[in-house]
């Protein structure tokens, strides 16, 4: 499994991702944003952070980064792409994933542990989880309020493309379990082909008991075991 993590100027979770892969027994390497090819990588990670400062709209500048055309090519050819937080924002900006991420409904940045429900455990990113499993993974964003039009939402739901939902400790996808106003409590979606995942929560912050728990390991394990099969 060859894993590359794109480092945009302003990315700040790229090293955390690298460390998380190391903890999970896999080596990853950095891809500088000015590279124009991601050939040879099985998985491209778009990490969290504030690419290019995110002064305009999160992810809006990064989509024009030199590396992005080849990330899009990689995705179209079936290569795995995983966008976390700012990476998810970039994926919606460049059209690999539908919808948009708006300001949090409370207008405040939120950094906190968050319960998620695994809505689809049959993806390349979630097969290590049980369907409906409740996991605790930190969120850390100011613009994570997922929005999509009614037709788009229907399509996502019907095709099982909502991968994670924000829930309460008891697993209820209610307002109380929704930290940022996301439509239908959506916290992660995949593309139709299933090889692109975008999510606001940070699984790379939940792979060690000492730091944030281990509930995020499932995503890493899913990706790694997928390759072994």
């Amino acid at each position, binding site marked *: 499994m060859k894993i590359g993590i794109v480092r945009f*100027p*302003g990315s*700040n*979770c790229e*090293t*955390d991702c690298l*460390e*998380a892969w190391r903890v999970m027994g896999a080596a990853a390497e950095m891809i500088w944003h000015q590279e124009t090819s991601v050939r040879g990588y099985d998985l491209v990670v778009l990490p*969290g*952070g*504030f690419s*290019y*400062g*995110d*002064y305009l709209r999160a992810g809006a500048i990064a989509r024009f980064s030199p590396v992005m055309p080849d990330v899009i090519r990689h995705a179209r050819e079936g290569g795995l792409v995983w966008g976390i937080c700012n990476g998810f924002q970039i994926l919606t900006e460049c059209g690999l994933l539908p919808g948009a991420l708006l300001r949090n409904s409370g207008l*405040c*940045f*939120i*950094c*906190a542990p968050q319960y998620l429900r695994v809505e689809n455990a049959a993806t390349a990113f979630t097969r290590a989880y049980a369907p409906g499993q409740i996991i605790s993974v*930190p969120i*850390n964003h*100011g613009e994570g309020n997922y929005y999509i039009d009614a037709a788009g939402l229907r399509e996502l739901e019907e095709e099982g493309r909502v991968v994670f939902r924000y829930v309460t400790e008891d697993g209820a996808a209610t307002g109380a379990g929704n930290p940022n106003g996301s439509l239908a409590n959506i916290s992660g979606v995949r593309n139709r082909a299933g090889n692109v995942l975008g999510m606001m929560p*940070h699984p*790379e*912050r939940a792979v*060690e008991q*000492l*730091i*944030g728990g281990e509930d995020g390991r499932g995503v890493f394990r899913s990706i790694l075991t997928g390759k072994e099969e």
Partner: protein
Amino acid sequence: MKPEVWRGMGLADDEYARITARLGREPNYLEVGIFSVMWSEHCSYKTSKPVLRKFPTAGPRVLQGPGENAGILDIGDGLALAFKMESHNHPSAIEPYQGAATGVGGILRDIFTMGARPVAVLDALRFGPLTEEKNKLLLRGVTQGIGGYGNSIGIPTVGGDVYFDPAFSGNPLVNVMAAGILRREDIARGAARGAGNPVMIVGARTGRDGIHGATFASVELTAESESRRSAVQVGDPFMEKLLLEACLELIQAGVLIGIQDMGAAGLTCSAAEMAGRGGSGVEINVDLVPRRETGMTPYEVMLSESQERMLVVPRAGREAQVEEVLTRWGLEAATIGRVTEDGLLRVTEQGRTVAAIPVAALTDEAPVYRRQAAEPAYIAELRAVDLRGRQLRQPAAATLLALLANPTIASKAWIYRQYDHQVGTNTAVPPGGDAAVVRVRGGRRGVALTTDCNSRLTYMDPFYGGAWAVAEAAQNIACVGALPLGVTDCLNFGNPENPEIFWQFEQACAGVAAACAAFGTPVTGGNVSFYNETPERAIYPTPMIGMVGLLENICSLCPAAFPLAGEKVFLLGPAEGLLAGSEYMSQFEGLVGGVLPPLDLPALKKRLDFVLAAQEKRLLTAAHDIAEGGFAVALTEMAVRTGATVDLPADDILAALFGEGPGRYILTAAPEAERELTALAAAWEQPLACVGVTGGETLTVALRGAPVLAAERKRCRAAYENALGNLMH
């Protein structure tokens, strides 16, 4: 030159006379500007220097003491910890978002200037009561500014402390601390050496923002302060993130002789300080300084406080390498001058010399004032306040709930949820604990960090308050299982020209010095912030202490919350606390006063060493020191998730439940560890009493068998966790 010119820049008439005598001529406008910022209190420490000299600054772990951009301590295995705290009070008072944001940016530059990668930010904040709309705006703006900068640049904000008191209405305190890790051999310093070596400016371009920020920080806040908003800088965390990576790359590549960040007084201060430390001169051609605005005068270029800029002195011939690294990170580098042998700060424009000042006149020879000190009359009045015979005004449970909802005591989650406290994936103890704990990569170590100061106690007795700030910080560090190593301070006071304020300052610093000596925690640097006054009042004196500690094995860190039901609860220290200066007396009696008995620093140190000994033997499953709100609040903070039932060997309900005072801890241990812990306490001659057990749905306290408090755990938790959010919505 007209006196209005130098007076307008904050220079006194005798200071101007001194400048004229030193130069042997009248200074020009630019030179007056340069002197005025370098001789401002903020840059020169002209009032505080004689007092600060009394701090203990040496120790076996000190690799860099005061005088550099940050202090550095040895943490073993070739690794070192750089740390420093600074104030951004005045800018935050009139422009809270940018004031706080640039406070974070400035302190982070101090850390990576030393060659360290920043790993943590802490914020010690003081505001007026949230019943006033203005204070809410300040809290919201400051919180968002800290988050806006720290979250974007990707350094976790892991801790700090927040108090609310009318003494800070109109003059909030925003003290920012940062820490970073580096290899010992990578320590960089801010000295310009080697005549002929180039002087380069790297990072952002220079604009007209922040001109005379240092001077602005050296006067009181008045109604006109609002019009000085142009003295507040604007931060760009994205730029600084790039600058951080580029500078660390340059330092690690060994290209640089010296590096210095540009903060207060911008190019003027960084050039003069670098030359001063190197014993050399510096010549700067302002034509070569990259600018973001046209038509800037040499005065504006030299005094601009535009953020995200650094001054570097590379080895001659390595300019291209500096440019290559900066360009790769999308930044600019420009050679703007050179190191000289003549000991002058020389500024040229269009081939003409526009300023030529001996560096020593700006740095070492800056005036030093021995201010008058006089004990204020209020001190005796407060001591005379009689606290005897006070009774609970309402049932103990209702009192506890009201204290838990007091914003100074309540959970600060509304604030720290807005900070990324996890980035770096090293935060083992996030905000909300006694001290934050950050893992040090490449080994098993962890670093503990805390900020502390009880401003009210310092107002009542500045010596006591200064010493207690250090002692409480040490207690917090020990509670998480770490050994206290060293201190950075941020000394916030009113106008020192007022003898009563200067007395507060002298006394508080003497207290800090005495406690640092007692606890073996040298002061490695810090910052003084005077003139924290509005026309109505001076702030409570606040000698903020930032302390760092070391955990040899991070896996042995000790939580503050009870982890399990069925564990034994111990009280270490006296069962009855002090009501003088307590939150209880302030909140329920509206009283500030009473007698604070002298701190027995050696006894507090011994008690702390006992806690550390128990930690080392891994006998403790939770530890928390008793501070604001007393035993009842400390117990609740530990027990909101598990409940507890305790019986204290005490008689006075008020003093037992809500009294404060030093050297008091609540500890828990597994039942099978009780005997060993008790024996250890006996060997250390420590007053340790097993007072109860954890578990249950209530918090129940009795005094010698007589029930005095029963509160539902869930109600306590709701009061504690929701209070601040409710006030802010």
